[in-house]
């Protein structure tokens, strides 16, 4: 009985609310002011831009997407994908461009040389550095630590629960090329490579190390937004010479400087889309990327807002891409 009464009351209340809303109706109707965005899809069409999961890449993508949308009237679809899958997307026609590529000779061979579904779209102008880094306090307290030769001296300081009695060298996201196990072996260091497994884990480790003055050495790279929060110090490894990394098992030298580049799908390159020209012409400096990355990661701006801010401040550079 009580239940039934409650049901009734609920029903009555529902109808009352209904009446209220109907009488109080009003306000703007959907479609009254169909905003600009959708009608500007001119000759450009849809532009499928892969977004790989790191902030530097996102900075590139944000700016390119913003320019493509605002200046070229493209409809940009960003696709959040890991590199491997993004490249796979060239073949299936789902991805038009990768806007920051780190090496990946194996993928280039597979998709550019063998399958011919992708083409090289030039350099981004960014220089990619890979290597071993220590937190700034450590570099300051022990300046000699930035040379690999003195690493063994401090090995015991880097010991952790994971490193089995040796010093710990922390490696990060498995996406990145690493020779670290071979390096440790061939340089005969008293270290063990421990796989943090993700960039997140790596950054958190460095952040904590700097804050608590802990001993951490690990794999890292630049340009990277985190550098603007904690400027890590790079450890000097034996100098890179052409071909010294030819045999992965015998590497005993530093990583090369990567000239970061852009890749586009073959179909996209032939389509005559202005977006392809934009991708091809897009180039900026590490500093530019770090600025936008900082907007996104540290200032927590949305990628669009970050891109807008940078584009407005650097109109000349943008004009050069779309001239």
């Amino acid at each position: 009985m009580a239940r039934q009464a409650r049901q009734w009351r609920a029903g009555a209340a529902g109808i009352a609310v209904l009446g209220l809303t109907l009488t109080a109706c009003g306000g703007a109707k959907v479609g009254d002011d169909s905003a600009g965005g959708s009608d500007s899809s001119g000759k450009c069409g849809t532009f499928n831009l892969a977004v790989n999961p790191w902030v530097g890449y996102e900075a590139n993508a944000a700016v390119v997407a913003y320019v493509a949308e605002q200046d070229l009237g493209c409809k940009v679809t960003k696709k959040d994908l890991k590199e491997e899958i993004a490249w796979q997307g060239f073949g299936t026609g789902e991805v038009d461009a990768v806007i920051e590529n780190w090496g990946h000779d194996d993928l280039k061979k597979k998709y550019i040389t063998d399958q011919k579904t992708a083409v090289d779209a030039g350099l981004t102008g960014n220089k990619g550095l890979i290597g071993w880094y220590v937190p700034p306090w450590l570099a300051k307290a022990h300046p000699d630590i930035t040379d690999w030769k003195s690493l063994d001296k401090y090995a015991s300081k880097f010991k952790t629960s994971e490193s089995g009695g040796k010093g710990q060298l922390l490696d990060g996201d498995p996406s990145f090329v690493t020779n670290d196990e071979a390096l440790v072996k061939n340089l005969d260091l008293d270290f063990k490579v421990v796989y943090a497994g993700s960039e997140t884990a790596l950054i958190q480790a460095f952040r904590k190390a700097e804050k608590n003055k802990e001993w951490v050495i690990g794999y890292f790279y630049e340009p990277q937004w985190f550098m603007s929060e904690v400027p890590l110090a790079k450890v000097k490894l034996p100098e890179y010479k052409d071909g010294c990394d030819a045999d992965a098992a015998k590497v005993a030298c530093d990583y090369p400087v990567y000239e970061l580049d852009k890749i586009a799908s073959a179909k996209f390159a032939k389509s005559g889309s202005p977006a392809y020209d934009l991708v091809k012409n897009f180039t900026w400096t590490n500093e530019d990327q770090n600025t936008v990355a900082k907007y996104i990661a540290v200032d927590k701006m949305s990628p669009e807002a970050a891109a807008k801010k940078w584009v407005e401040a650097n109109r000349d550079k943008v004009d050069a891409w779309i001239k």
Partner: protein
Amino acid sequence: MTVAVEKPENADKADKVDKPEGSAPVAGARRISRRMMLAAILVAWLVLFAVLRGKHTLTLAAADLTDLHRWFNDVNDSIGADRNSNPLFLYFFNEIRLVIDNLVTFVQDLISQSSAGRSVPQIGWLGVVGIAGYVSWAVGNWRVALLAVAGFTFLGLQGLWQESMDTLALTLSAVFVALLFAIPLGVWAGLSDRFNRIMTPFLDFMQTMPTFVYLAPLTLFFLIGPASATIATLIYAAPPAIRITAHAIRSVPETTVEAADSMGATQRQTLLKVLLPMSRRTVVMGINQTIMAALAMVTIAALIDAPGLGKTVVQALQSLDVGTAFNAGLAIVVMAIVLDRVTTAASGRAEAARSSGNRFLKWRRPLLAAGGVAAAVLVYLSHTYVWAAEFPGEGSTGSTIARAADNVTTWAQDNLSGVTNAFRDAITNGLLNPFQTLLTDSPWWLVGAALVGLGTVLGGWRAGVTTAVCVGLLVGTGVWSDGMTTLASTVVATVLVMLLGVVCGVWMGRSPLVDRLLRPTLDAAQVMPPFVYLVPFLALFGATRFTAIVAAVVYAAPVAIKIIADGVRAVPETTVEAATAAGCNTWQIITKVQLPMSRSALTLATNQGLIYVLSMVVVGGLVGAGALGYDVVAGFSQGQLYGKGLAAGLAIVLLGVMFDRITQAAARRTSA
């Protein structure tokens, strides 16, 4: 008197089974000798370990591959290379993809994405909230309807309306497609033992194979987009529905089926009029589990561009933005809790309505119609007016939540890391390292023999054979050493899970109040994407195996706790009363009555705990666990490691199957 009445009942059951008695006196002696044999195996293992340490360990460096791994790579490449000419792709996978893509896009156009020249979806927030409330009321009751309305409104207040609706669209589509297959398959498996036996390994495989392993190939088959995300989700989400449907069909009382047979019902009549209606309640619980499993995939599917809350989480974590990630994670939790409570209420509705008497039923129809009209009006409003289409406000609640989460995390990182580090080192050095050394530094054949021995002693010869096969295949995968490292962490995590499970489970089982307080927290821990709490854990424990263990414990403990709590509660009141009457104190009641009597619940909790821990191996690989988890992640990230990742995924499946069979067989033995 009562005895006299009960006796015939029991007697009758025995009557039908016709089971010869007489093994009882032997059982006691056997249990003692079983314990002795376990001890003997362990001692033998330790002694041989001391002698043979470091030999035949089958270690494989991170970048090294075996022939099997290279072969996997080649297969993967060749599939990718001829996908444009292969008829299987052209006429089969493409068709599936089109259908599913259309389905998801259709739902998205309805509730989440702007479509057909509109700047907003067809149904705005008010309409969705209205439908959610109405449907919850119609299939459940008014209480869950209120919860649904409140929950969905909260999603809007969090500033995550569109993301939530994307997630909802994807989840509903995946669940829909999953059920389309799962329920018929489940019915079939419920009717046919043979089919059930064939199906079980596949289901095990679908549930324990890490998603990362098949994520990349899926995008080859079904391209990047909703179809791949949906299929990835449903591979993981369908098995519970199949299993539970089969179980439901099986647990329809035999007499009822017999009664239908005795009246001359055809198979079809029995199925439609007896089996299906009678298992409906349980099947709805299966749907519930499928929804939960689908929501657990939200973040992983985001890695192949699945839209929704998962993307927000993943992107926030690129810049270690815990607050934003937590806010989105919370939205997933809210959605999960709403869907869970609504489906649970739906499964019990028929009974609830029946007990409330028939007079209510008479009014139900007009009320339903009225509610339907109300919902339709809300939908119309949200279709027409901007205020009802776009969720008003800036989502300031969301930023408040994010800020609060940030503050808590920062505080914990600043103040707790001393304590946590000590705890971590104690567990790592005291438990994990010795155990891992024993597993990884023993010759493989010694570990294998020990495992087979343990399996046989605990679960009988059948389990022993399964273990032997699994060990053999593990060696074959080429990642034996990594497998042993993962095994060590898994066992340690399971021990911790069971410790927590027993403590909290007994507490909850004994006190309904504690149960009511803890349960929502447990639900949240189960559906909160692990990625969200990984960052604070990393800060507290560093990138270590221990962090991975803690993450696994957070994920797996709720299941174990719930199972044990239910087990403790199921101990008959009279038994506890008898113990109290005999003068037992609380501790004695727990240790001598409630725990021993919920032994089968404890074994089940161990089983599920292990499986859940294993499903976190890959996540563990992202935070320093290395070993199999890292191999899988690396395989997902780098083409030349794909084969190894696949092998590592297989190894995880093998570990899961091995433990599952041993614990299940052990459970059967203890309960027999």
